[in-house]
Every structure is written in C-alpha cells, then in structure tokens.
C-alpha cells in the first residue's frame, strides 16, 4: 500500500481546507531555497518543530535544508548563559567564551557557506547560530532571526552584544508581542505550535493509558491533577502542592502527579526537587515522576489520564505543555503569565490563577461541575485545532516568506 504523504496525514486532524490552503499558498514558492539553522537535531522544542516543518516544506516543493551548528562544551556553556540572559537572568560570561562563540559561528559559516550563500531565505533559530550572519556581509537572500525565547526583559550587557548580530538580519520573528525586543527591522509574530502527529500528542488507546497508570501506581479510582514541568522555582511546584492540599480538605478522593525531568545537570533543579519532596512528606497520593526527556508517550498517557492539568507557572514562555494538555481535552489551570494568557481563557478553556488559593478554588469548581469541566475540555481542544497546530505555524512561515520577498507593502497580491 502506498505510504501516505505527510500532508495527507494532516487532513484528518487539521482539516482538508487547511491543507488545501497550504498547498495553494506554497505554489508560487516552488523551488525556493530555504535553510533552517539551529543547534540540535534532537531534543528541545525547536528541533521538534523542525523535524516536522522541514519535511512539510519539502513536500510543498520548497527546497528546504536543515543545518545544525555544533561546538565544544565552552560554546554550549556560553550559549546557555545567553539563553539565561535573554530570559532576564544576570550572568557572568568570561571574555574567552565570547571568542569561542564567535569562532564556532565562523566555522559553521564556512561549513554551510555554499548552502547559505545560495539560499533565498535563511532562518536562524535562537542565539547559538546568530553570529553566522557576520560572515555573509553581502548576502543576497533574506535572513531571519527566529527567537523562541521571551526577550522582553533581557540582561542588557548580553543583549547589547547579541543585538549587534541580530541587527544585521532582514527581519526577526518572536512568539508573541510581549516577547519582542525593539530592533531596527520588522519583528514578525508567529506563535509556536504542537504537532498533533507527534508521540506526545497522538491518540492513545485505553490499554496504554492504563498501563502507564499502573506502572506509576496511579490510583484509577481517584481524581487526578497533573503538572508536567521541570522542577524549577518558576514553575511553582510547591504552589501546586499547596493548592492540592487545600482541595484535599474538601475532596479527599484526589491525587496529584508532578511529572518532570530529572534535571541532574541543574543544581537548582536538585534543590527544588528536595523542597518538593519535603513538601510532599509521606502523602501517598502525590507522585513525583522523574521521566527521561524522550518519555513522550508516557507524558501523553498521563495527560490523557488526568482530570485537570495545572501549569501554575510564575513566569512562562509560551507554555506548550498547556497546548498539549488542551489538545487532549483537558481544561488547564495556569499561572497568569506569558503565553498561558493567550491559551487559557477564564471559564472557556480553563482558569488563570495568581495564587495556590486561586488554583484550589478553580480545581474544586471544576471537579464539582463535571459537565463544565468536560465542556471546557472540548472547547480547549477545538481552540488548539484552530490556532496552535503546526499547520498554522507553517502557513505563517509561508506568509512571512512572501512578506520578505515583497518588502513592506501592506497587501501582496500574487498571480
């Protein structure tokens, strides 16, 4: 039997009209040379999106390539510091780290020279390869810096350093308007998305969900609250436990699952994890699950097994875990911050909260009104289908390409 094309697979989940729309939009871009550059092929949100975005663009007859910058441990230390600095943390970066950053970017520029020189459109993702452009002073294609981070309040000394490179780009792209840093060229807005066909998000049968629950000794008779996030102060796991305890006084039949990465390379992560363990004490109805980074199906099953998903962050980027939960028809109780605000709409797809008490109140409300919980879950899924699937993000990338090729005109009429 003939293998289905990738686009065909999206017909069912995203809608035939959406896929047809993409095909029509892409027609004039046939043969265009597009290159994406990031820092990893596996792991992390950017790689996850590119794993699907690149073949989709290829299937639309756009000549799309994907290059990856690699460096030594000092390079990664440096770019990790950039990442933290863009998120507003004060960091100290030794002078030689900047030199190594520039050198690795120069080497990458040499390695990818032919591809980048001939490209019509170059997407450079995040800070790791941002300085490559320095080696292409007379580039003929359009270069775009795609920022996946919240750059609204960066640590200024590091931002000033990076801005010298970023200002060389023809345009930048940020996830939401709140994350934008003022730059000399247009800053486009493209929200992130989830891939409905990724293991994280595909439909699972009941047997698999049950197997995951029994593996972690999750009591199927109890109502289940879930937060999926690394053990980080800004994700407020302690606040989630407080909310759970406030609800437990009224509804003893609940359990809480906190699922996240082991964070063994993150000293603060270890500290927070210990605080969480201390807060849990010996409550058998709170499960702390340390899962490997590739436990996609397990996370998927946990999300599907839960009654309510929490993302009680104190600060958040876009919050794709919220999107993933909503895709599984779960209302989300989320912190009133960042991209959670765009996704969680009070009384419709979940609730925005500002305290453990607020979270507890909303949990009780939903668990006591099952029909409302179910209704909100359905609305949440439909909201994601319309707005946060990869097909929408692809459409916006294609639209952006037209915008880059046609300059600043407000209306671009093709054909």
């Amino acid at each position: 039997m003939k293998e289905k094309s990738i686009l065909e697979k999206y017909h069912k989940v995203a809608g035939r009209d959406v896929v047809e729309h993409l095909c029509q939009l892409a027609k004039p871009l046939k043969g265009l040379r597009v290159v994406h550059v990031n820092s990893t092929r596996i792991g992390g949100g950017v790689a996850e999106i590119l794993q699907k975005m690149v073949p989709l663009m290829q299937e639309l007859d756009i000549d799309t390539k994907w290059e990856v910058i690699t460096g030594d441990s000092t390079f990664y230390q440096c770019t990790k510091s950039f990442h933290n600095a863009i998120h507003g943390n004060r960091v100290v970066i030794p002078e030689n780290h900047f030199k190594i950053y520039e050198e690795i970017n120069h080497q990458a520029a040499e390695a990818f020279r032919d591809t980048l020189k001939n490209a019509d459109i170059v997407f450079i993702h995040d800070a790791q390869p941002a300085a490559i452009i320095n080696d292409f002073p007379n580039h003929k294609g359009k270069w775009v810096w795609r920022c996946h981070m919240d750059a609204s309040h960066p640590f200024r000394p590091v931002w000033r350093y990076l801005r010298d490179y970023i200002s060389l780009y023809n345009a930048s792209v940020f996830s939401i308007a709140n994350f934008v840093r003022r730059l000399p060229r247009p800053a486009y807005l493209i929200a992130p998305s989830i891939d409905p066909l990724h293991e994280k998000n595909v439909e699972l049968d009941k047997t698999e969900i049950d197997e995951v629950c029994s593996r972690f000794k999750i009591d199927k008779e109890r109502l289940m609250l879930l937060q999926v996030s690394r053990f980080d102060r800004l994700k407020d796991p302690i606040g989630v436990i407080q909310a759970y305890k406030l609800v437990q006084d009224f509804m003893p039949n609940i359990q809480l699952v906190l699922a996240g990465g082991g964070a063994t390379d993150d000293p603060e992560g270890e500290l927070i994890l210990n605080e969480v363990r201390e807060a849990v004490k010996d409550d058998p109805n709170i499960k702390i699950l340390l899962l490997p980074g590739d436990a996609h199906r397990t996370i998927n099953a946990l999300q599907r097994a839960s009654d309510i998903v929490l993302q009680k962050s104190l600060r958040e980027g876009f919050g794709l875990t919220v999107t993933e939960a909503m895709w599984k028809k779960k209302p989300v109780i989320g912190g009133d911050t960042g991209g959670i605000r765009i996704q969680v709409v009070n009384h419709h797809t979940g609730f925005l909260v500002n305290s453990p008490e607020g979270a507890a109140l909303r949990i009780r409300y939903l668990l006591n009104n099952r029909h409302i919980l179910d209704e909100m879950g359905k609305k949440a899924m439909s909201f994601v289908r319309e707005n946060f699937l990869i097909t929408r993000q692809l459409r916006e990338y294609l639209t952006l390409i037209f915008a880059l090729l046609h300059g600043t005109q407000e209306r671009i009429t093709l054909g």
Partner: protein
Amino acid sequence: MKSHRSDIEPFWVKDCALIAIATGKKAQNLRELREYLRDIDTNSIYYHFWGGLLRPRFDDPEYHNDFAIWVAHSLHHISLAERLAIIDPTNFETLEDLRSELINLIEDSLDETEFPKWAKRDDQFEYIRFQLVIFNTNISFGNPYEFSCLLPQVSLGSIFFHFIDSRHRNSNHIDDFRNWLLHFGEEYKNLINRIERIDPYFSSLAKLRHDLSQAFSDCVQGEGY
C-alpha cells in the same frame, strides 16, 4: 438555477493569509493607549478589529476587538470595555472615522477618572500591524448552485477576503458575494438581502462560512425565497 449566464464573469475565489508585525508601541494605561492611537497607522486599527479572525485568538464571546479585550482583562475597566466592544466597525465609512470614535470613547473615560488604571508590565497593549498575502485558488463559481455545493469547502482565508476585507476594498463597502450577485439584477434580490443580514463582526469565520453556505443552499432549494 444551475445554468451559467454567459454575459456574467464567474466568481473567482481568492484566498489570503495574514502575518502580524509588532510595531513596538505599547500602552500600559488609557492615556498611553490614546496617545499612540492618535497617529498609529490605520492598518493597525484594522488589525485590532478584524485581525483576530485570522490569527491565534480565542473568540471572546463578550468582547470582539482587541481594545475592548485589553481594557476588560488587563485594566479591569468593564464599563469602557463594554462601550468599546459594542463598536461595529462596519458602521464606519473609513478607518479614520473608527479611530475618532475610539479616541472619543477613551477620552470620555479619561475625563471621568482622576487616576487611570495601569496594566501589569507584561500585559501591555501591543499595537500590531500586518501584511496580507492574497492568492488565487483557481476555484470559480458560475451560479448560486455552485456556491451552495462548494462554499463549505473553501478556506476561512477566502471567507475573510471576500466577506470581510472586501468591505474596505470595494467603493460601495459591500462584500464581494453581494457585488457579484448584483450583476444578475433582481434575480437574486432575496439572497442578497439574506447575505446582508449576516453579521460579519460578531462571529467567527467558520460560523460565517456556515451561514453563507446555508444562505446559498436555501436559495437554490427555494426555501425562504
């Protein structure tokens, strides 16, 4: 009903896609909102009234434009939000007229309050502009029967382009569907009236597509005509 009129050009369906651009202009209170509103490009005003239909945004059943949504949710100024939400942009001849109305309402509210409310630092009103890419679909309709069969399958971008955006493009401020039907003289007068009654503003594009398809379908079946 199924026949084509050789003297009338078929309706060629176009499609469109929108990309948003940050202007860098942000307001944290009503005064700032008004100051930027005075000279922001009309493209941005258009975006904050209509752009929500083509970009990720929840169809807020209470507030239908970005100004009202922000004033309600971020400034918690409900009375002004209500006044802003009830503005129907289709009632304004030009976007400049719409701008004046917005400024008037905000100024009235500022006159009533001594201390304007402030939004959180990370919850400011962000003025956004857009670029619109318009492209051919190679789909055409020769008569309302063909519309009734195929309209449910056209993209939401096409609905936006022909039913919303057209009101600003066409000198008579009506949508492309009615403009095309007008070529038939009195023949589709009832259908034109039915389409006129479809509210383009207080709805989603999916709902508009459904309502338009229903109107064409009822027309070819002779129901209500």
